[in-house]
């Protein structure tokens, strides 16, 4: 097993554990902190997969902006920030185990090559050329979606404010 494999396995383990902890701990603030670690962890995986632009984007957008937005969400909707969620009981765990079993069976039954493969590195310049050239339509669509989402979000937040 190569050193890269070991690093990947370690980082992947941290990703799964932090994602699970984020959804299982009872304090919302702790949830957001775990999910922030999860986002940083995924950025490390993107760097391992030689996608540096996406790694930086993940750090800026997810670990930065989305985490802060979630903190704001908690701050404006709770009287006490560190208030606990109700415990979920034993109910969800059989469901979680069943989902894990489905995932493992689907992965084991696939015909994807199992050995190590070389990773193709793409320079950010090539990616930006594609984003503004061949895939320019996607970027335009994203911009339009963001503008309509912005209008929708402003409408939702302002609705009923004048009453």
């Amino acid at each position: 097993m190569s050193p890269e494999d070991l690093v990947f396995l370690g980082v992947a383990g941290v990703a799964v554990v932090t994602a699970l902890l984020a959804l299982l701990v009872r304090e919302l603030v702790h949830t957001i902190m775990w999910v922030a670690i999860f986002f940083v962890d995924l950025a490390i995986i993107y760097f391992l997969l030689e996608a540096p632009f996406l790694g930086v984007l993940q750090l800026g957008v997810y670990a930065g902006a989305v985490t802060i937005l979630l903190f704001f969400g908690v701050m404006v909707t709770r009287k006490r920030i560190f208030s606990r969620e109700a415990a979920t009981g034993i109910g969800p765990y059989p469901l979680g185990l069943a989902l894990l079993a489905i995932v493992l069976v689907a992965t084991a039954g696939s015909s994807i090559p199992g050995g190590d493969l070389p990773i193709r590195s793409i320079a950010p310049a090539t990616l930006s050329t594609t984003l503004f050239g061949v895939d320019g339509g996607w970027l335009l669509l994203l911009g339009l979606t963001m503008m309509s989402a912005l209008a929708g979000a402003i409408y939702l937040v302002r609705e009923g404010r004048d009453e």
Partner: protein
Amino acid sequence: MTELALVDVLALSAVLLGVGLFGILTRRNFILLLIAIEVAMNAAILNFVAFAAFGGTPAAVSGQAIAVVLVGLAATEVAVGLAIVLALNRLRGSINVAEAVQLRL
């Protein structure tokens, strides 16, 4: 040049999708639901990045381009989701989705 196994990355992505689905199906707090959706969305983005890393040149560049667009979409979704959280909190005084029954028949 770095070498990794494609199946390892895809397995991680599948497990993360499972964790996200678990959260979506079991949690009732709107912010936790949003976080679960983000985990599942990140699993999908990881899939695109993995196939971009191990595919040929055109697939690689397109895969990463789609991943960039998906990151933007996910951020947009969180912004709209939090606007819904604020509206729900003002209307019901709680962000428990089980209590948001206005649209039920």
